[in-house]
């Protein structure tokens, strides 16, 4: 019998594992729920093995897309998706949908009231302390001059199901709701790995929703602007949901910008594009409001735009969602939601919230203390659960600032299995649903993002699930939208703001640096395999030279004799500065924030690298080091293909300039230590041979010099030979060309002057003089290698300054006088 039927049968027989929780698959009478009947008809014969295969396929696809999630304070980890979706029938969805639409409308009405007439406070429908004590209430917006606090274009709401199957609101997400990109990605992946099932069950597709999302952002523009410029303001590639942001930016064709890319002039917001300023009409923000304006909000923020609040108040730009929207996430509003709904919308509240008690009244305080064993006690912002074991401590914390605490009943959650290594296991489901503003109403996304957690496990360890809402009739239009928008995607290439140019320059540098390190790793590994037990041989001495070159570039604090451990860590340890793993992590981060600029092929490269590293991590054999390094090299070489297919614009020239700078640097790092010292004929031959391999020039050298390796021939080939693409001279002429093509270049800018000096210097160099011996050393060569490295570093700094600078960081005007 198949795995799903088996699970259903066992639930019927033994009851749900989490009785009396609502089971998503089987009802209390032991009958399959209608939505699942349809799914089982299609997927019922899936075996555990087949399902495990699907899961592996999902992992591979997600890795190829570079889908990652970064839990706060942790390293990015792969986005996780379970093969089994949460399936809901059209009928049960339609009830939920009305509740969601009402809630979004209600939240927007609350926003309008709290930043406008404040009837809710004046009429004491909501206690003033519950609102005014919340950090999300932005007083800089709450001014008489503000017309409209701005729209709630996107809302997210977290829901759980009680034992009767009724959805309850756990939390409202209005500040900058994340997850729509992940939901879309989940669907894209699942529809590829379960194509037949996906086709057969008639579910609502998500694509039309995305079309509506772009329209919703555009309609949020200030009045009178027909073709608004919209940007997505991100806190940066290291943020928790960077992938989600980049996905939306790429899918909707919105430039992904950071605070430094924007500036305010005359109360309007502009984006810097290649030295020009272009006005921005809509900012879709993924930065929390407090961090968006160092002038009026948090002064220590580096993520914001000075003057943004003023621009918003003047109505020259719309920030989505409103800068004031954070106040709606306040759990202290939940107990009053029903009364608020009656007051503002004049209708009963459809979706109830999880029962919540506010500590701001003596009765509320008393109730929370009495029921502290059954309630979850939270501060209202951030809404973190606090420890309630110590009654005295809880009592005094609440007594000090009672208005900042709530007690909530444990969130009800339904049960649905997740495929684990031990087969299907029941998990608890949280559903994040989304709405977008359409005209004056709010339309829910028919679908969502579900998170499944093991009972009792923290939310961040959960695995995501796609949400399938089945159509009541096969003729229902997807998302209930008849006029399907035409294809999505960037019509015009996203502008190259300074942040993008900087990222591309570094992408080029890290690609080259990482490739050089992989080559060095391969050569060092080959020497180690042959000579690590014969240290006294010429090969053993060469191993020492190469190994110390590698460790100079990427310091290693392990046992110096442990070459295998060293090289393993170079490939695997992302925290080791200068390592291959470190370089790959940087590349991935850059690619993430450049998602809208790069071909998806880029992410396939990382997927393949991850697999090569995975193979090494699980294999104890030393040969796997060479094997995995070789595969990583092949994958990195694919980046040339990605670059070859890019449009030759400012960004491309900068990326290639970055690569050229780094190629020059790397060749110096390699030949410097190898050739500065003369170690005897035998040893030098081994060292130079290894250097030629690491510089990918061994074949050329052999062809020209029939296997006779001398310092002069190596220096000529690696430093002076214009025709060798791996040589210093070639790197410099390439750099010269790339720089000349940049918009800001004149032929005499500082980076160009520095490169010209280097080329002049190189033209004067003659190999014999350069390699003149003094004792065991080559002092001219040592000086040359050092000076070239220094000069190239200056070039890199100058390029950054002249071509990608966003100017200095914002600083405070200085403290003003404190008076008498």
């Amino acid at each position, binding site marked *: 019998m198949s795995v799903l039927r088996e699970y259903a049968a066992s639930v019927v027989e033994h009851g749900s594992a989490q009785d009396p929780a609502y089971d998503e698959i089987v009802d209390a009478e032991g009958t399959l729920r209608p939505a699942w009947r349809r799914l089982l008809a299609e997927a019922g014969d899936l075996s555990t093995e087949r399902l495990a295969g699907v899961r592996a396929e999902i992992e591979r696809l997600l890795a190829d897309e570079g889908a990652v999630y970064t839990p706060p304070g942790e390293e990015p980890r792969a986005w996780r998706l379970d093969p089994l979706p949460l399936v809901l029938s059209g009928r049960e969805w339609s009830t939920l949908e009305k509740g969601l639409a009402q809630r979004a409308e209600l939240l927007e009405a609350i926003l309008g009231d709290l930043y406008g007439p404040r009837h809710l*406070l*004046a009429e*004491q429908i909501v*206690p*003033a*302390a519950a609102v*005014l*004590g919340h950090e999300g209430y932005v*007083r*800089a917006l*709450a*001014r*008489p*001059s503000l017309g409209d606090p701005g729209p709630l274009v996107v809302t997210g709401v977290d829901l759980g199901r009680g034992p009767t199957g009724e959805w309850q609101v756990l939390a409202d997400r209005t500040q900058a709701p994340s997850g729509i990109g992940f939901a879309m990605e989940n669907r894209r992946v699942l529809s590829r790995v379960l194509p037949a099932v996906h086709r057969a069950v008639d579910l609502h597709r998500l694509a039309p929703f995305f079309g509506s999302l772009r329209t919703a952002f555009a309609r949020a523009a200030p009045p009178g602007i027909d073709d608004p410029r919209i940007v997505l303001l991100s806190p940066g590639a290291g943020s928790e949901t960077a992938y989600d942001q980049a996905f939306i930016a790429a899918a909707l064709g919105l430039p992904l910008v950071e605070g430094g890319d924007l*500036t*305010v*002039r*005359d*109360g309007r917001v502009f984006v810097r594009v290649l030295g020009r300023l272009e006005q921005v009409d809509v900012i879709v923000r993924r930065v929390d409001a407090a961090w968006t304006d*160092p*002038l*009026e909000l948090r*002064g220590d923020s580096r993520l914001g735009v*000075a*003057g943004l609040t*003023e621009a918003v*108040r*003047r109505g020259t730009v719309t920030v989505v969602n409103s800068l004031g929207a954070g106040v709606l996430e306040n759990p202290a509003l939940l107990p009053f939601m029903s009364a608020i709904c009656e007051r503002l919308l004049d209708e009963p509240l459809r979706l109830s919230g999880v029962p919540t008690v506010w500590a701001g009244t003596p009765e509320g305080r008393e109730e929370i203390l009495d029921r502290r064993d059954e309630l979850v006690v939270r501060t209202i912002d951030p809404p973190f659960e606090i420890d309630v074991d110590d009654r005295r401590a809880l009592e005094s914390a609440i007594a*000090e*600032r009672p*208005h900042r605490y709530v007690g909530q009943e444990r969130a009800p959650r339904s049960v649905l299995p997740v495929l684990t290594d031990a087969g299907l296991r029941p998990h608890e489901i949280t559903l994040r649903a989304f709405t977008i503003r359409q005209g004056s109403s709010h339309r829910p996304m028919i679908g969502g993002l579900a998170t499944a957690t093991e009972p009792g496990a923290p939310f961040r360890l959960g695995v995501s699930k796609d949400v399938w809402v089945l159509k009541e009739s096969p003729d229902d239009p997807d998302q209930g939208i008849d006029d399907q928008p035409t294809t999505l995607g960037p019509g015009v290439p996203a502008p190259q703001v300074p942040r993008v140019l900087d990222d591309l320059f570094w992408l080029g540098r890290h690609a080259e640096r990482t490739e050089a390190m992989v080559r060095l790793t391969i050569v060092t590994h080959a020497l180690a395999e042959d000579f690590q037990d014969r240290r006294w041989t010429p090969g053993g001495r060469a191993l020492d030279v190469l190994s110390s070159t590698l460790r100079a570039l990427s310091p290693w604090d392990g046992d110096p004799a442990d070459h295998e451990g060293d090289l393993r860590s170079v490939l695997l340890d992302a925290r080791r500065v200068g390592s291959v793993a470190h370089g790959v992590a940087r590349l991935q981060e850059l690619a993430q924030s450049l998602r809208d600029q790069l071909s998806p092929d880029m992410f396939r490269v990382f997927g393949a690298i991850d697999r090569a590293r995975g193979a090494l991590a699980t294999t104890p054999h030393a040969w796997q080091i060479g094997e995995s390094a070789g595969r990583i090299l092949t994958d990195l070489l694919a980046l040339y293909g990605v670059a070859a297919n890019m449009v030759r614009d400012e960004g491309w020239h900068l990326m290639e300039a970055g690569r050229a700078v780094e190629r020059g640097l790397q060749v110096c790092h390699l030949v410097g230590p190898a050739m500065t010292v003369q170690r005897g004929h035998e040893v030098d031959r081994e060292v130079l041979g290894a250097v030629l391999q690491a510089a990918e020039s061994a074949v050329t050298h052999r062809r020209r010099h029939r296997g006779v390796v001398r310092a002069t021939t190596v220096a000529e080939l690696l430093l002076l030979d214009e025709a060798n693409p791996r040589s210093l001279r070639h790197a410099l002429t390439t750099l010269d060309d790339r720089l000349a093509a940049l918009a800001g270049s004149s032929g005499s800018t500082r980076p160009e002057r520095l490169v010209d000096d280097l080329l002049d210097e190189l033209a004067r160099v003659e190999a014999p003089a350069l390699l003149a011996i003094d004792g065991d050393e080559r002092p001219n060569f040592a000086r040359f290698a050092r000076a070239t490295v220094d000069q190239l570093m200056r070039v890199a700094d100058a390029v950054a300054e002249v071509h990608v600078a966003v*100017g*200095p*960081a*914002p*600083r*405070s*005007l*200085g*403290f*003003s*006088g*404190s*008076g*008498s």
Partner: protein
Amino acid sequence: MRYRVRHRTTYTYDAPVANSYGLAYVIPRPLPFQRVDSAEVRIVPEPSDLRRDDDHFGNVVTYFQVTAPHTELVVESESVVDVRAPVLDPEALATPWEAARPLQRPDLPDSWRAVDLALPSTLVDQTEQAREYAARSLQPGRPIGEAVTELMHRIHADFDYRKGATTVTSRIDEVFSVRAGVCQDFAHLTLACLRSHGLAARYVSGYLATSPPPGKERVVGADATHAWAAVWLPDGSWLAVDPTNDQWLNNRYVTVAWGRDYKDVPPVKGIIFTEARGSTLAVSVDVAPVV
């Protein structure tokens, strides 16, 4: 009394500033006891953008942006105001202080507005020390006017006025530990004492006209910005007290702006973009009587 107030703030940088955004709270607000006859702000270099607005608390705030490269920024205001001593209802002052806690008075239609000023704010921690210190003045049933006045006397007596003892971001427990501070610290301290007992109290910034010593000429520019505190009374009025000078607000005080604490109403604050490493600040205030 009628005064002409000149308030000049000058920032000097050791390298050019390319772009500067600022907010200034330097224009007195009109009040029942304060008529503002004229008020102007002048910024040098000429700002590319300048806008006056009323903020959340009804204060006049000036937003400006200077895009001309500069090594010196001057924000100067000049206003003419006519001030009387505030008149308060003796009955309101006689209210037991417990009845002036806005959170306990939902029966009063406007008490919710005062709630904002009864909650803790960034620079005003409601510490246990402040609560205990204030408890000696806030005896049960005591009239609020009397209790707050006594608290003011005690702060004036117990804390030394000393420049440099604290900084603009000093917190309440620092002020308690050094037992000294400037007007801003005394104002914050008063707020912490009153709020920790549930009273609503606001931070007020402004100017105080000083008299020259007998027989001496008035020295122009020797005055300073000043700050004090005001406590909410159940009739919606506010009793303003100056613990630095141990007196109630009178016709020598010019009120500029109020908020939860200093951070809501600094005279000038801003964000600059520059490579400069250092800046110096000079403030001069002159409150001159006019007829």
